[in-house]
């Protein structure tokens, strides 16, 4: 596909909708190229080339809205996308809260956030990286008997957001990842685990061999896993699983869930929802961050830093302009989500956290979707390790852990400094007391 002039396409969309009598209009466009390679059993398995482009237009007329999207960015294509959005806006209902974010909130800063590092490697080099990654995993131990392969993927693209306040910004970004998943066998059956890294800059990815070895070691640790009996227990969530607890909290304070009263965090702003040693902050301008941006999905300037939870106290909801108006509040520049969260820690590394917990369950995998966001009731399938005297005793599987998220947040007793910095949330292990483990 030829390079599309996204800025020009955005201008065509905004101008055309305005000419057609729309009160307001906004357009978000992106295009990018990518490649995904998988090697399995030391052979190249798949090579997929990606080449995507999309235009999303929303129009507003008399407090009614409609939106439409398309990959066709020819002038005719853009205009028919706008036409489709306008056609929908004729039939939707009016709501005074609908519309662009206020003009005086639009971002004015411009500085580089170091987000774009296209990977210069060619296909053959990427294949070699995947092969090396898998080879490292397969070579760790004879009990590694099979593989789901190692994958390299790389994406690089441009995006534009424009609206009829006259705001138009473009940016480029990249994202690369390397992952490996292998299978181990013991007399008790097969187990699988994986490891991965992702970064905007391929040079900063963990070495292929490290990722392969970690995948294999994690798989080996799970061999011989068994159920444990039902009991009350302390649960330590490893950093990857700990992030899921943070993500449920964010989901519960999103404006859409709040104004629909579909959240267990309703009316909790200004209240203590976590222990006083917990602060959760957003860092939208972090250099090279997975979600860094100077403006949100509506063009609103993002802050450099904002505490969502300060010393355990919920500071505010996570709002775009629509939900903010619904609630009589001001947008928190979170249209499109939160950007680069950091969760504070209580100073211990993973080993010391285990020692502090003494007896309990270390959870390294959660499966299933057993979370009721209206009540906070939580029940998920889990796998991990039984811990006694601060030491891992044996791998555990086919159990569930259950509680209520409100209680679980209050019952956090420690957060480790064993940060996992991949992705949008930087967080260490979290220890929660008093959960119910169900098994046999």
């Amino acid at each position: 596909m030829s390079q599309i002039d996204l800025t020009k396409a955005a201008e065509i969309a905004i101008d055309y909708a305005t000419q057609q009598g729309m009160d307001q209009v906004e357009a978000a466009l992106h295009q990018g190229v990518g490649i995904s390679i998988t090697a399995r059993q030391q052979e190249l398995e798949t090579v997929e080339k990606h080449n995507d482009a999309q235009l999303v237009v929303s129009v507003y007329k008399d407090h009614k809205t409609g939106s439409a999207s398309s990959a066709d960015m020819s002038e005719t294509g853009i205009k028919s996308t706008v036409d489709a959005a306008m056609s929908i806006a004729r039939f939707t209902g009016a709501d005074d809260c609908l519309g662009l974010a206020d003009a005086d909130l639009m971002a004015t800063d411009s500085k580089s956030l170091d987000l774009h590092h296209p990977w210069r490697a060619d296909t053959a080099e990427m294949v070699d990286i995947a092969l090396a990654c898998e080879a490292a995993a397969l070579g760790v131990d004879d009990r590694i008997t099979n593989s789901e392969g190692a994958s390299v993927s790389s994406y690089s693209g441009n995006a534009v957001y424009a609206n009829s306040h006259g705001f138009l910004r473009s940016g480029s970004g990249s994202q690369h990842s390397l992952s490996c998943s292998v299978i181990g066998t013991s007399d008790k059956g097969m187990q699988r685990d994986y490891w991965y890294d992702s970064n905007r800059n391929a040079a900063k990815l963990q070495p292929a061999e490290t990722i392969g070895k970690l995948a294999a070691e994690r798989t080996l640790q799970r061999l011989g896993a068994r159920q444990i009996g039902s009991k009350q227990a302390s649960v330590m969530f490893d950093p990857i699983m700990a992030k899921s607890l943070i993500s449920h909290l964010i989901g519960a304070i999103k404006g859409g869930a709040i104004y629909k009263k579909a959240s267990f965090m309703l009316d909790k702003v200004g209240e203590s929802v976590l222990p006083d040693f917990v602060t959760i902050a957003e860092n939208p301008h972090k250099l090279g961050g997975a979600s860094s941006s100077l403006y949100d999905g509506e063009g609103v300037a993002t802050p450099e830093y904002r505490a969502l939870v300060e010393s355990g106290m919920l500071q505010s909801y996570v709002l775009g302009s629509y939900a903010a108006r619904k609630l009589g509040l001001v947008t928190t520049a979170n249209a499109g989500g939160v950007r680069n969260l950091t969760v504070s820690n209580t100073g211990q590394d993973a080993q010391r956290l285990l020692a502090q917990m003494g007896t309990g369950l270390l959870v390294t995998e959660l499966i299933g979707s057993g979370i009721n966001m209206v009540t906070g009731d939580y029940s998920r399938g889990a796998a991990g390790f039984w811990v006694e005297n601060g030491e891992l005793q044996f791998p555990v599987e086919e159990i569930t852990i259950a509680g209520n998220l409100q209680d679980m947040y209050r019952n956090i007793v420690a957060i480790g400094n064993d940060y996992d910095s991949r992705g949008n949330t930087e967080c260490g292990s979290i220890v929660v007391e008093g959960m119910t483990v169900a098994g046999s």
Partner: protein
Amino acid sequence: MNEQHLSIAHAMLLEPTGLSDPDLSAMMHKLTNVGGCDFADMYFQYAKHETWSLDEGVVKTGSFNIDQGVGLRSVCGEKTAFAYSEDLNVAAINTAADVVTAIGRQGQNVEGLTSFRAQSATALYSALDPVATMTDIEKVNLLELADRLARTHDSRVKEVMASLSSVYEVVLILTSDGRQIPDVRPLIRLNVSVIVEQDGKRERGSMGGGGRFGLDYFSQEVVEHYAHEAVRQALVSLEAIDSPAGTMEVVLGAGWPGILLHEAVGHGLEGDFNRKGTSAFSGRIGEKVASEQCTVVDDGTIADRRGSLSVDDEGNQTQNTVLIENGILKGYMQDEHNARLMGMGVTGNGRRESFAHLPMPRMTNTYMHAGKYEPEEIIKSVKNGIYAVNFGGGQVDITSGKFVFSSSEAYLIEDGKVTQPVKGATLIGNGPEAMQTISMVGNDLALDSGVGVCGKDGQSVPVGVGQPTLKMDALTVGGVSL
């Protein structure tokens, strides 16, 4: 031969950019002219999506999307090269075909095709565009009706969210063995979810359905059923007590609880995992993997169902495939690539999310045949256990065989009687072991209402599930109450 499908597919996908037989043959030649190429295909797709959403009694948003493009694949042994183009011009597709050729590296001199022989299966659904089966005003009215019916049903209803979506897909699949297979696929879905409140306590409930037909399916009666059912579920949850924790007898209701089969056996019987030997079911054909009361099939051939397809995304006719018969593992679900490598037949399970994704073995409608017991008899046989009738999502680790699925409506069974509702508990088990503990299968087979979405490797496809009421003698229930 379905002339109507072929003419629609040509008109939508080839004629606008003037793609001719010689163009298509030349593209296919590029894909097959790669060292060791076993087969190649080109998947042309046009997809139109429209969604309207209501909350606070108002249809506030509507969105409309058109996607089209072609996915090009060349398969050599275990290797697959894939690229796609969102532009259906000859030059753009040829560029993508060159990418595929470059991936395959060395060329060979195979003879090219000159034309593609039209082929199609019996249509399992009408070739209609569901977006056009109702006016925009009528769609808005339908959602407002759902809102009204839910709110007037019970004063404790505080919020109603409803959405109506219609998808119109036209595909044309060209294969390296010279076939061209068209399909025209409508798909609609209506969802109603409510929040109820009583004494400061809030709960949710939801219900929906749909299938491969026009929007007139959503009659006043159907909308009323969804609205009332969503309210009923939410009100039951208001009364729910903590669920017990531990291993116990579990009775699953008919219909949607068939998600059990999707997770506990379905994924583990997909051909790719079994070819690679990564499934807990690998190498076990002919073995007993479930109690003898269990016969489980994957059936893509049921008319108008959400999970059905006249042909799969590789142009093969869908089938009613027996996976487990009287407890014995009979077969896997296969796509073209994995069937070839395993020396087995295709089963019409090659599916893909879109032209921009590679096909792989996926389920269609997966269900268990009816057994001999009355549902009441099954409940009566349980001393202390759980009766679970509605579920949210599920997930499986196909390698260890561990599956979970989360109940959204469940009750205690005490001394053979259904008593109090319990809060959503997650059920967890090991596929091959759990299926062995099925001790009673009911005579009330039901399929779900048509809302299922299955995710695998980041690709979503619509699916169906079903089962009769059944009892498992020992399953772990993830409640909080010890």
